[in-house]
């Protein structure tokens, strides 16, 4: 089993919290993992990505080769498109539809969404609204993790355990909200894939 995932977003959007959730679940499932992160200059509001690789065999490269990612998870609709050269032919783009606008020439949202919809395998969801519905607008990244979960070769219970561990310190309420967010994202993808 092997899943190569590109996480995409903008510096400050916290894509690494998604990576941490998957990472914990992978460790719990005794899988090998490599996760290349972007630190430094780009974190200052620039485009950031993380290469996350999970496998039952040892992993050689920290970087995912071109055209071979199984999945792009993007917390913002334009950023996922930036990494299409990494996506496999049968790979999936799972993206939040809420744009993060910190540049003056950000395109019209409809045009970005049109480009997303042109990708044969895509899941596009309003993770911000779904997070709010689950009880906390801050859980949109966890909604995204849930939406990506059907495409990741890790038992869903392990992801739930990961969430419990990630948020355990913050109390049961926070854990519950995030589990709800995770399940809502997953349900959306199951219905729309």
């Amino acid at each position, binding site marked *: 089993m092997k899943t190569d995932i590109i996480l995409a977003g*903008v*510096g400050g959007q916290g894509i690494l919290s998604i990576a941490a959730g998957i*990472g914990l679940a992978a*460790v719990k499932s005794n899988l*090998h*993992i*490599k*996760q*290349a*992160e*972007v*630190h*430094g*200059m*780009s*974190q*200052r*509001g*620039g*485009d950031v990505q993380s*290469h996350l690789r999970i496998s039952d065999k040892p*992993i*050689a*490269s*920290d*970087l*995912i*080769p*071109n*055209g*071979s*990612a199984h999945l792009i998870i993007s917390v913002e609709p*334009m*950023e996922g*498109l*930036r990494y*299409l*050269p*990494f*996506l*496999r*032919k049968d790979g999936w783009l799972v993206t939040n539809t809420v744009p993060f606008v*910190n*540049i003056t*020439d*950000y*395109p019209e949202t409809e*045009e*970005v969404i*049109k*480009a997303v919809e*042109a*990708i044969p395998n895509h899941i596009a969801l309003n993770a911000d609204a779904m997070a709010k519905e689950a009880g906390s607008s801050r859980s949109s990244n966890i909604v995204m993790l849930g939406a990506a979960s059907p495409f990741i070769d890790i038992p869903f219970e392990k992801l739930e355990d990961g969430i419990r561990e990630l948020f355990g310190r913050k109390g049961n309420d926070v854990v519950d909200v995030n589990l709800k967010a995770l399940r809502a994202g997953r349900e959306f993808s199951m219905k729309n894939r």
Partner: protein
Amino acid sequence: MEKLLLLGDEALAQGAIDGGISGVYAYPGTPSTEIMEFVQHSKQAAELNIHRVWSANEKTAMEAAIGMSYAGKRAMVCFKHVGLNVAADAFINAAMTGVNGGLVVVSADDPSMHSSQNEQDSRFYAKFAMIPILEPTNQQEAYDMVYMAFELSERLNVPVMIRITTRLAHSRSGVVRKAVTPQNKLKLPTDPRQFVLLPAIARVNYKKLLNTIPVMESLAEKSTFNRLSLSNNKKLGIIAAGIAHNYLMENFPDGCPHSVLKISQYPVPSSLVNKLYDHCETLMVLEDGMPVIEEMVKGIINIGKPIHGRLDGTLPRDGELNPAIIAKAFNMEVYEGMPIPNVVRKRPPSLCTGCGHIDVYTALNEAIIDFGAGRVFADIGCYTLGALPPFNAINSCVDMGASITMAKGAADAGLVPSVAVIGDSTFTHSGMTGLLDAVNENSPITVIISDNSTTGMTGGQTSSAHGRILEICKGIGVHPDHIFVLTPLKKNHEENVRIMKQELAYQGVSVIIPQRECIQTFARRKKDEKKSSEE
């Protein structure tokens, strides 16, 4: 033992703690910063009372580590590649003094310049100093290497370099720990003159160093980090150094059909290179960064078998390697995925909304109009982003501290007034000495020290200035009538512009200190305060 999920940087930190260090000395710089940060957050390091305070710059860090080594204890120095330029004097001479306690220098290179001014390769420096290098391919090796590096340093009586590149520094994977080595006891060097580099002693030390090279090489030949596997297929032999070995193996998941020499411990083991050369018809050299090994193996003349790599265009001459680049070098087909749609725009890094540097540039841009463009020498930090629109406010960014000295040189040439823009951390790193030069000649320059009370660009580490910029400038001899502390806020804009205009017109050294905490550091501090008041 349980597996920890660590960044390459963190694996180095944990390996050093478990390897018995008594101190880490460092100045922040991507991609090395997380090494010191990990030690600072480590409970184990606190219990062991390991030194873990940031130094003012890389040279002071290197020298303090030499001092700790002199006293018999194990010390580690960490910085980014350009930090090694700053530390170079101490670094090269540390090879001449030798060590007492083990001394490890971690230099983190940044091929492709993700967050740097250049992509220099630290291995040149180690070769220059004639010391061994360890170059890990993964997080476990990073841990294992630093763990053994102190012993290696003590055994060979030289500092040992660990070279890491951005990818490994910032990539996370499983690491298994070893038993914790106790720290060395305080112990003076057996030879009391070992660290006295007077010419007569230095000549003796130098001979000793030269005599150690064959020992270093034989250790590299036997090192388990280096591996030669000869294949029956004699067409091609590959030398793969450090992380390049990963990209090679990524392309051959069932094992590489060619002969491969993996190099992770230097000096380059020449006997292994010769064995590979004799066995194969052609060679290819894969290394991240500059063609260091390739140039050594090929020489200028390259008589003999063809040697491929960055120099003959088989691989790109610059930039970071990746699996696809190496696949192409082997003429393997690479599926390039889908093209990036036209709708995607560039998203460069930018100053945070509300950052004080923004108010500084807005005021400076207005104040300087009457004096003319092209006279603002900036420095390295978040404020370098003032080079981008909408500010377009600065004309240079070269190396840390260069703002003040370049402004002075330009003023010497007649570009009057010249302006320097520098941050508080960069000022204490290497701006103070330049200011002294300017004071000594009363150069007509205006120095703006944009003090946000932190080292912002690298993630908000404590700044050595500790809010004392004003006192430091007075101490250096700037006339108190020409030092101004401002608050860079919209509401003070008119007043700030007025002061800047006035000082730009002054024919001597003025210092303007806009002071307002970085909003990221501010937010983090408030969060920490809230957390500790709840506990």
